[in-house]
C-alpha cells in the first residue's frame, strides 16, 4: 500500500497538473508572491525608519493576484490595478526598482514621476492603466478598455481589481452593467479582505459573498479562497477564456486577508480583535503556497534559499537605486497638464 504521504503528493501533483501547470510555473508564481512580499515589507521598514512618509500595500493579497495574473496573457492583456496590486503589477512587468522609485517619489518613477503617492501604479508599456485614489473609478475604465479591444479586434482582455469596500461605489455597479450588456472582454476581480480601512464587511454589505451579485448582471460569479493560488488560477482561467471567446465579463471574488494595517497611517489594533489578527496569519497565502510546493516536492530548502537570496538582492538593489535617485525638478511640475507637441 502506498504511504499516506506519497498519496498526498500525488493528489497535490494532480491538482496543478490538472490545471496544466508544471513545477516551474508554480515556482514562477511563488517567486512573484515572495518578491511582492519582500518589497512590501521593505517599504514598511523604510516608512518606519522615516525614509518615506507613507506606504500602502498588499500583504495577504499576493496569492489572489498571482492566481489571476498567471491566467492572462501578460504581454497582450490589459490590467487596471488598485493600490494593493503589488504582486500583480510585478507579474505584469514592473520591476522592483520601478516600485521603489514610486515609493520614494523620484523623478524616474514610471507611474507618475513622483507626482502620486506610492501604490498608484501605471505603465503604458506593460498595459497597466494609470491609477488614481478615488475608489471605484477604475472599474468603468476597464470596461472601456475591453470595449475598445472588442471594436478594434485586438484580442486583448482586461483584468481590473478592487477591494470589498469598493464594490459599494455606484461606479462598480455601472461598470458591471455596461460590460454585461456589451459582453466586454473583462474580468472583474474583487479582493475581499473583509475590511475597508476599519469598516468590516457586515457594515459594507448585507451579503457574505460578493460574487452573488453576478447574477444581477447575468454573468458568472465565483467566490474563491484567495490563499489558494491554484484555486484562484482555475477560476480566473475560466473567466479569462470566457472573455477571450467573446462571451463577456465574469466576476471573481477572492477572499483574502489584510495582514497589515490599511496603510502606514492606520492602526488596525483599534478595530480588529487580537485573535483575528493572529488567526489570519494561518491563511497567509505565501505560507500556504510554500507548504504546497514543499509537499509537492517542487521546492526544497535549497530552492527556497536560492529564490529568497535573489529576491533579497533585488529588493536591496531597488531600495538603494531608488533612494539615491533624484527627485523631480520643480521646473517640471507644470508639464503634462495638457499634451505637449514636443513632449517627452
Amino acid at each position: 500500500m502506498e504511504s499516506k504521504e506519497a498519496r498526498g503528493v500525488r493528489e497535490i501533483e494532480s491538482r496543478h497538473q490538472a490545471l496544466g501547470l508544471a513545477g516551474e510555473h508554480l515556482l514562477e508564481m511563488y517567486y512573484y508572491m515572495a518578491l511582492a512580499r519582500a518589497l512590501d515589507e521593505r517599504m514598511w521598514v523604510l516608512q518606519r525608519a522615516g525614509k518615506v512618509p507613507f506606504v500602502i500595500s498588499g500583504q495577504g493579497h499576493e496569492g489572489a493576484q498571482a492566481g489571476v495574473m498567471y491566467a492572462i496573457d501578460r504581454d497582450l492583456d490589459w490590467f487596471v490595478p488598485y493600490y494593493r496590486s503589488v504582486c500583480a503589477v510585478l507579474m505584469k512587468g514592473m520591476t522592483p526598482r520601478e516600485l521603489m522609485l514610486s515609493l520614494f517619489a523620484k523623478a524616474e518613477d514610471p507611474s507618475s514621476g513622483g507626482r502620486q503617492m506610492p501604490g498608484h501604479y501605471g505603465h503604458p508599456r506593460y498595459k497597466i492603466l494609470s491609477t488614481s485614489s478615488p475608489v471605484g473609478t477604475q472599474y468603468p475604465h476597464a470596461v472601456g478598455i475591453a470595449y475598445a479591444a472588442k471594436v478594434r479586434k485586438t484580442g486583448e482582455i482586461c483584468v481590473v481589481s478592487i477591494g470589498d469596500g469598493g464594490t459599494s461605489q455606484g461606479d462598480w455597479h455601472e461598470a458591471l452593467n455596461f460590460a454585461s450588456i456589451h459582453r466586454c472582454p473583462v474580468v472583474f476581480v474583487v479582493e475581499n479582505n473583509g475590511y475597508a480601512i476599519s469598516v468590516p464587511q457586515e457594515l459594507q454589505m448585507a451579503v457574505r459573498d460578493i460574487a452573488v451579485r453576478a447574477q444581477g448582471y447575468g454573468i458568472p460569479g465565483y467566490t474563491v479562497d484567495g490563499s489558494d493560488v491554484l484555486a484562484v488560477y482555475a477560476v480566473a482561467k475560466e473567466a479569462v477564456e470566457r472573455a477571450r471567446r467573446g462571451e463577456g465579463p465574469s466576476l471573481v471574488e477572492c477572499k483574502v486577508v489584510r495582514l497589515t494595517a490599511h496603510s502606514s497611517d492606520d492602526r488596525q489594533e483599534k478595530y480588529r480583535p487580537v485573535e483575528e489578527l493572529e488567526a489570519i496569519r494561518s491563511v497567509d497565502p505565501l505560507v500556504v503556497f510554500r507548504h504546497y510546493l514543499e509537499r509537492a516536492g517542487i521546492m526544497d530548502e535549497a530552492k527556497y534559499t536560492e529564490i529568497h537570496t535573489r529576491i533579497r538582492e533585488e529588493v536591496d538593489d531597488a531600495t538603494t537605486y531608488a533612494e539615491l535617485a533624484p527627485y523631480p525638478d520643480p521646473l517640471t511640475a507644470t508639464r503634462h497638464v495638457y499634451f505637449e507637441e514636443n513632449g517627452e
Partner: protein
Amino acid sequence: MAELRLIDAINQALHEEMERDERVLVLGEDVGRKGGVFGATEGLYDRFGGERVIDTPLAESSIVGVAIGMAANGLLPVAEIQFADFIFPAMNQILSEAARMRYRSNGAFGCPLVIRAPYGGGVHGALYHSQSVEAFFAHIPGLKVVVPYHPGDAKGLLKASIRDPDPVLFFEHKKLYRMVRGEVPEGDYIVPLGKAAIRREGKDLSVFAYGLMLHEALVAAEEVAKEGIDAEVVDLRTLRPLDKETLLASVRKTNRALIVYEDNGFLGYGAELAAILAEEAFFDLDAPIMRVTGPEVPAVPYAPPLERWFMPDARRIAEAMRRLAQY
C-alpha cells in the same frame, strides 16, 4: 457655403469625423436609434451601426468612465450627456480621472475624449433642464471647455475637439440649436481651440460673452449703436484655455469691460475674466468692470414669468452698456 443651424453643424461634424477616422465613436443616452433627444446624432446609427453609436444605460458616470477606458485603448470617444444638468453624476470621472490622467501619469497616458452637453435656459426646461454648468469645468486644469455660438464655429470647434489629445467639454446652447443660421463651410476644416473671435468691432466698450448670451450681446450692441455707443463684442468660444491676449487687447482699446453670462453671478465663469482684468489691465480701465448674469437662485424656474425674469437678455445688456458708457 450653406446656411445651417447650430444643430446641423454639430451633426455634420460628427458625421464627417466618424467617416474620416474609424476610431471616433459616439456614446450616450438615446444617441442611437432616436438620434439624440435634440437630434444631434441623427443618422449616425444608420450609417455607422450600434458598435460605434452606442445607446448607453442611463448612467452618466459610466458613460464618461467607460469613454476614458476607450480613449486609453485607442479609440476617440465622443460622449453625449443628454442635458448638461445631468453631468454631475459624472463629475468624479471628469475631474478626478479624465482631467488628470495625463498629469498624474507624468504624460504617459492621455485622455482624448469629447463630452458634448446641451446647456442653457430659455427653453421651458425649468430647474433641471436649463443650467449653465461651464464654471465648474472651466476651473479644472487638464480640461478644455468650449462653447460655440456661430454654427460655422461649432463645426470647426467640434472637429478640433475630437482631434484634440486632451479631454474637451463641449457645451451647446439648446436655445441656439434651431434659433440662428450661419455660414458653415462644407467639408473639412478646423477652428482652433483657445482663440476668441471678435464678432463686432467697437471702440467704446468691450463685451465678453459666449453661447446664447453672445447672441443677446450682439442684439444689444446694435441697439446701443443707434444711440452712438460703439461696443466691441468678443465671443470667447473657448473658456479654457482662455484667450487672454484677445481679452486684454480689447479692454486696452476700449477701457471698459462688460461681462455677460447666463449662470448665476457668484463665482460664475465671468468672475475670472473680471479678476484677470482687475489685475492685468487695471490701469487701462476707466470704469468698474460690470457683469450681467443670471440671478442668484439655484436655477431657471419653469413658469413663464419666472423664466423670463431669470434670463439675461439684450435689454438688460443694453442697459448695462449705457451705464458703462457713461463713466
